[in-house]
């Protein structure tokens, strides 16, 4: 354990001797966010809204309703995305969508059986026009369906059988105020990837200089050597996260519900990304191949993972894939932490990922490099 600390101090000292690099790393996300804001406008609202649909019924009635929404004139301004109730609540609370429509279990049966049923629409309170449009469109569709099946004649004076109940959810944190603030979590992880890539490439410098082989001749455990590198990386990534968020708060009016937790998340999940890149680097047969391999993997991951374009701006399919990439998942969790709806399980998942990649790295480096 003692050597782990010695190894970490060594890497941190080396990092401190390159202040320009550190400043550049911290500045990357802010720089990108500001540039994109200048391109798209300072407080540009999103061109389209998002209606999340939690279809708990799964029957014909629900499918028809979703299809009708997608075919309506509303679809030019609002895209529809199917989610489960929990994910929908989380995203609506974090302000990442205009509204959430919950289609309850038994909707189709009730609809076809002429029984009363209630649809629930949860509105994003920070938006006005798009949730209004969604609510009105849904009202029209429900009325249309009500009369279309020919039962309206008998019950036109009575209470409609399908009711739309509208709620306005209390957001735990307000929506980011501008495009740059919305993009910042993604660009923060873009910076994390830059830093992780640079730190992971250090293993090749150490191999070339003979330092790795020399370590192998000492009684020091190789795992401790790598653990020291991991600790140094975690601290560096935490620093990048802290200053990135702080600058985001000051310059871009980014809402941060829990700064320490957000920094901790960037540090832990960033460490996992660092080890992932190091694994790629270590598995390569030469430094050039390692760099090519890293770029080949990182470039699409940063594109998909919300590094350049927020998920809400992406086509649905791409956004769905992007949220499952390691960095995309980290961005989603960071957004949740920033909005105050952190998932504790995410920390456990990230810690497991770090442990698994650390073990893999130790084995691969010992086998391939020493």
């Amino acid at each position, binding site marked *: 354990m003692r050597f782990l600390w010695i190894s970490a101090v060594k890497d941190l000292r080396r990092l401190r001797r390159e202040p320009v690099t550190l400043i550049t790393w911290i500045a990357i996300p802010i720089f990108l966010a500001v540039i994109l804001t200048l391109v798209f406008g300072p407080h540009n609202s999103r061109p389209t809204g998002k209606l999340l649909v939690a279809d708990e019924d799964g029957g014909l009635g629900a499918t028809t309703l979703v299809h009708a929404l997608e075919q309506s004139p509303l679809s030019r301004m609002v895209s529809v995305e199917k989610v489960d109730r929990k994910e929908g609540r989380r995203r609506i609370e974090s302000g990442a969508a205009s509204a959430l429509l919950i289609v309850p279990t038994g909707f189709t049966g009730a609809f076809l059986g002429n029984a009363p049923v209630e649809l629930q629409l949860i509105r994003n309170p920070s938006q006005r026009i798009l949730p209004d449009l969604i609510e009105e469109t849904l009202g029209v569709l429900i009325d249309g369906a009500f009369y279309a099946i020919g039962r309206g004649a008998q019950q036109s004076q009575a209470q409609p059988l399908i009711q739309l109940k509208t709620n306005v959810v209390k957001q735990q944190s307000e929506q980011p105020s501008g495009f740059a603030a919305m993009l910042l979590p993604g660009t923060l992880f873009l910076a994390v990837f830059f830093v992780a890539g640079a730190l992971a490439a250090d293993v090749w410098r150490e191999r070339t200089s003979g330092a790795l*082989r020399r370590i192998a001749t000492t009684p020091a455990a190789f795992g401790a050597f790598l653990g020291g590198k991991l600790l140094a990386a975690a601290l560096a990534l935490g620093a990048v996260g802290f200053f990135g968020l702080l600058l985001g708060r000051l310059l871009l009016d980014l809402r941060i519900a829990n700064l320490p937790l957000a920094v901790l998340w960037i540090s832990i999940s960033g460490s996992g990304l660092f080890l992932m890149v190091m694994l790629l680097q270590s598995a390569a047969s030469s430094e050039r191949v390692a760099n090519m391999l890293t770029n080949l993997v990182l470039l699409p991951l940063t594109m998909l993972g919300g590094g350049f374009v927020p998920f809400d701006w992406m086509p649905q399919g791409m956004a769905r894939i992007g949220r499952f990439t390691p960095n995309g998942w980290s961005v989603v969790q960071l957004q949740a932490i920033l909005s105050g709806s952190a998932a504790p399980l995410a920390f456990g998942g990230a810690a497991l990922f770090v442990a698994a990649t650390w073990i893999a790295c130790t084995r691969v480096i010992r086998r391939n490099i020493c």
Partner: protein
Amino acid sequence: MDHDVVRDGVAARRSIGVVPQEIALYEDLSARENLAYWGGAQGLRGAELRGHIQEVLDLVGLLDRAKEPIKQFSGGMKRRLNFASGIVHHPKVLLLDEPTVGVDPQSRVRLLELVREQARAGACVLYTTHYLEEAETLCDRLAIIDHGSIIAQGTLTELRAMLAERDLLLLTGIFQAEAVKSTLAGLDGVEVIHIDESQVSLSVSDASHRLPSIFAAIHSCGEVRGTTLKQPSLESLFIKLTGKELRE
């Protein structure tokens, strides 16, 4: 060492110091920080570590430059620090892989003296080098390795005896290999080690007196353009054993 390197690897490695051919150091750290790191890797801590660092910095003549990042050091200074990093924990066995490659003559002399000091202090030193004169002056026992195999070993005296006090004569020019070989076979005290169309290597007793007869014999089947006469040495032994000049 009293430790089995397989069953008790950690303890064995604690007794070993390695000075690799590469400058296995961190350029952006100072000399003292590098030594602290490598000493720490060997298990040294606190006052003991600080004492050892001070001692080896003094030994390699870098005490006054201890706080500078080593990227500002000359090649010779880095080599000395590389050496210091291998001995900071006072190893019982010191493995040196060409520690003088690419250094200036003063640093080379200093490094060789440092190696002798380690041996005098009781360390067992295994020294790998392509500079055979270094091996001649430093080592008690020598082994010549070619293509990964030991082809000769012993003390310097024992190895010289293998040459039977014969000189090594290297001729360069244009030769008809087979004809030269058969011509020289008739000369007393001349042994052909290697022959091709551009070079002839001969092991000759009392070469300076036999040169005229060798030139006369070769005259009809080749043209000599260069001659090198070498006294018995490790290098001539190496050439005799391998039939080739020393290579990387």
